[in-house]
């Protein structure tokens, strides 16, 4: 045989089936491009210069792994569809005398061609777009170190080529396996395989409903953010399994039930639709479930990362209520007084004079903090009993308690509140407490005489996800009592009396950081033994942008990949159905269905099949809302900011639905072209 025969046959095969292969190559290219971009950014100097680069690099590494895995699964799925359509051709070659060896050669040539084209186009697109992606990422992270030189990363190219070569090799092996283990007749008929009518599998259908209901229940009833994070992955798995079961079995079951209702079923509008739907759902249930899951993933990812990114300033404000905050831990409650604090206050004043600002919104108070289980008005603080690291502890009522002397409260708020011994005023941050008394084991029983609306808690309260109770008492010793004598697990005192001092400086970012640093060194000078901590917003802003911006960027990238995948599944689904419906169309016409009736029936089926995943995705999203909102709490996006997340989610969904409809419009045209094209030939 002439050299180049097989490659030419393979190339012809691709060219003649370009309606099948072009979208496939395009999708593979997009995956390769995104993979390249992410790997490129991971090694990019401009990104490595950013603040918080370790977080970004970690996020990007994770992203590249996710994309590689997803590309593998998705390309396998698409290729199985292609193979099903090509088998007929291969069967014909086989019957005409071409050996399995030759078929394998053709498939190999084909796969190599597709692989080469995909990787080449993908890399070209990736290299072209990498600069744009770099600018986007740096901009998102509010970095400034952008140069406008164009870079190509050979390492990233090699890595992309390697990963995708492996995937294509696996695909090739799978195709070869299919050819070797099938007879020529079964190859010829592969396309018409599975003509049996769908049977409703009640067990699977009901299992799907139960799984979904359980997952929804978990999502809605979850109370604590930590549990949410742990449970979230289980809930996601349950939702995925439930969606597949419902789409595959549940929908057929539903059609079967409809068919039992004679008055409904035997109407012109429902008759053809319902029975074809049962078929369609059986064939496409898995595809529809995949579309639904992908849509949900995109929506969850985009809405949560967008919320995080745009809620960043809010989160920063929540985490850093004052621009600059410092705390000094004193060795005991007895030495924590105005006299010992005087040099600190003096130092702070010196610094504000030096930088020429008047501190505003100043907080200046003494406090002692403990953590304990709060149950029925009793607090257990024993370190031996309390396991703070246990994820479930928050459900058991773990709470932070800040004790603040009344003098400091009155001074800060310019009030003249009076409290007797063992009388306290409380303020709850995240959470509520309604009992009239609170008792600390090994400590005191305190009578709550007033509940106040606001107290300037520090960033620690925001940073931790625990609820915080501020207890204002006559003095620290009066309220803490016996607790002061207790030791924590490391042997130090359980309660560390400390002094909190925070203010807004209103100076430029760099100066703010200088103020913070100077404050720290001056405080340390006063007493080197006392532990001291200072922090400011500007110092942390870059870190926040690194994390949230990185997540946002990755969210956008992954969403792009998932959307492409969903679109392609939709496209192939329409294509497959078009070929299947072609003969059916002809019969219905001969039996006396008008063109309009056929079109209307097909249209309603397409619409249902198409928008079912979107509706289910919306339901998933709705039920995921509470649990994701809880998880966002961990990122300092407090519950009070649920509205931001809500609005972002709604906007994301609207945009997504719009795109989805657009895809529907385009792909359904392809469908009509196939169906009507066949009809012209038969009549």
């Amino acid at each position: 045989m002439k050299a180049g025969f097989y490659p030419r046959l393979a190339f012809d095969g691709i060219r003649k089936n370009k309606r099948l292969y072009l979208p496939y190559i395009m999708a593979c290219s997009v995956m390769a491009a995104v993979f390249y971009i992410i790997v490129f950014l991971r090694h990019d100097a401009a990104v490595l210069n950013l603040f918080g680069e370790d977080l970004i690099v970690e996020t990007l590494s994770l992203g590249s792994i996710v994309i590689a895995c997803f590309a593998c699964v998705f390309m396998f799925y698409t290729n199985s569809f292609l193979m099903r359509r090509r088998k007929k051709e291969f069967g014909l070659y086989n019957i005409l005398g071409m050996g399995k060896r030759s078929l394998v050669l053709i498939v190999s040539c084909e796969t190599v061609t597709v692989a080469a084209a995909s990787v080449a186009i993908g890399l070209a697109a990736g290299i072209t777009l990498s600069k744009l992606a770099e600018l986007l990422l740096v901009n998102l992270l509010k970095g400034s170190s952008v140069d406008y030189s164009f870079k190509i990363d050979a390492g990233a190219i090699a890595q992309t080529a390697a990963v995708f070569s492996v995937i294509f090799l696996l695909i090739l092996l799978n195709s070869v396996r299919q050819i070797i283990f099938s007879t020529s007749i079964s190859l010829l008929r592969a396309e018409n395989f599975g003509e049996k009518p769908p049977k409703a599998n009640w067990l699977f259908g009901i299992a799907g409903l139960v799984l979904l209901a359980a997952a929804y229940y978990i999502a809605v009833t979850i109370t604590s953010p930590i549990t949410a994070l742990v449970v979230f992955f289980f809930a996601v798995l349950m939702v995925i399994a439930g969606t597949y079961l419902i789409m595959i079995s549940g929908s057929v079951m539903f059609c079967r039930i409809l068919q039992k209702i004679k008055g409904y079923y035997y109407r012109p509008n429902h008759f053809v639709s319902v029975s074809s739907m049962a078929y369609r759902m059986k064939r496409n249930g898995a595809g529809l479930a995949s579309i639904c899951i992908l849509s949900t993933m995109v929506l969850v990812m985009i809405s949560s990362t967008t919320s995080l990114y745009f809620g960043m300033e809010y989160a920063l404000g929540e985490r850093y209520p004052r621009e600059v905050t410092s705390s000094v831990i004193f060795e005991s409650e007895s030495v924590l007084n105005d006299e010992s604090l005087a040099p600190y206050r003096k130092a702070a004043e010196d610094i504000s004079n030096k930088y020429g600002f008047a501190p505003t919104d100043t907080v200046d108070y003494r406090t002692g903090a403990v953590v304990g289980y709060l149950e029925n008005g009793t607090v257990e603080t024993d370190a031996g009993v309390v396991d703070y690291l246990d994820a479930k502890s928050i459900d058991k009522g773990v709470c932070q308690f800040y004790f603040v002397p009344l003098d400091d409260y009155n001074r800060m708020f310019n009030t003249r509140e009076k409290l007797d011994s063992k009388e306290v005023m409380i303020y709850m941050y995240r959470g509520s407490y309604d009992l009239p008394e609170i008792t600390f084991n090994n400590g005191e029983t305190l009578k709550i005489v007033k509940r106040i609306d606001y107290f300037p808690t520090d960033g620690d309260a925001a940073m931790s996800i625990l609820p915080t109770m501020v207890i204002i008492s006559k003095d620290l010793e009066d309220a803490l009592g016996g607790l002061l004598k207790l030791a924590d697990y490391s042997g130090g005192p359980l309660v560390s009396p400390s002094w909190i001092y925070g203010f807004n400086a209103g100076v430029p970012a760099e100066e703010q950081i200088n103020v913070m640093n100077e404050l720290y060194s001056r405080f340390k000078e006063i007493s080197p033994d006392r532990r001291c901590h200072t922090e400011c917003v500007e110092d942390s802003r870059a870190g926040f942008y690194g994390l949230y911006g990185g997540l946002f960027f990755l969210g956008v990238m992954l969403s792009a990949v998932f959307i492409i995948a969903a679109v392609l599944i939709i496209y192939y689904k329409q294509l497959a159905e078009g070929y299947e419906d072609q003969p059916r169309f002809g019969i219905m016409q001969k039996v006396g269905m008008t063109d309009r009736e056929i079109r209307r029936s097909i249209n309603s089926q397409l619409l249902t099949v198409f928008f079912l995943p979107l509706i289910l995705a919306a339901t998933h999203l709705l039920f995921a809302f509470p649990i994701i909102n809880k998880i966002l709490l961990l990122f300092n996006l407090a519950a009070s900011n649920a509205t931001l997340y809500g609005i972002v989610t709604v906007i994301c969904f609207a945009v997504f639905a719009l795109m989805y409809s657009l895809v529907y419009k385009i792909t359904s045209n392809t469908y009509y072209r196939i169906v009507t094209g066949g009809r012209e030939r038969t009549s």
Partner: protein
Amino acid sequence: MSILEVSGIKKIYSGRFGGNRVEALKNVSFSVESGEFVAIMGESGSGKTTLLNILAALDKPTSGSVILDGMNLSAIKESAIARFRRDNLGFVFQEFNLLDTFTVEDNIFLPLVLAGKPYREMEDRLRPIAAKLGIPGLLKKYPYEISGGQKQRAAVARAMITDPKMILADEPTGALDSRSSDELLKLFSDVNMLGQTVLMVTHSVKAASVAGRVMFIKDGEVFHQIYRGANTNEQFYQRISDTLIMIATGGARK
């Protein structure tokens, strides 16, 4: 009373840009009486499928007219044609054309459902027909579960359920084994005995021999026709064979 009046039908297919003209039907005229069983015979390419498509209103003649029970087919608007077909004609095809998404029962109901008939009426109509065709046991099965002969009987039931003016059958025995063929042909002649007009296109002599009249089409024209008269099926079979041989060997036109 004649139920179908075909006069001067001509059908010309032309390729793109008007080239490559093929005259499928030159000049076909005939009429079918109500209650008649007519077979149309002809070799491949003789134009019989074209004729059937025109009679079924699936295609339009280049010139000439088809009048079914007083209605001129070419005068019916495009939008009303499907309904006309559904209400007046019943179809039986070589390839059965049952929808694999429906049970046998639902396949039979299809034309009635499209006509918007209530379920009770559909059942009432189906019962006697199903009994007559011997398919009550198959109604709940799917097409893929039953044999070719059974499928064709289901298709006949579907054609009959609307009580059509005429049943058009296109090579109904073409995909059947000889026993199933015999059963089906017996069925057709039984149905015809009850007054149903049947028009069948076939190239099987066996199939044609159950008809009351056989028309022979050659090169787009009705070349010849013979009536059964008092013949038995066997005698008629012999006459049809003789006629075919005569036509094939270029015998003179009667």
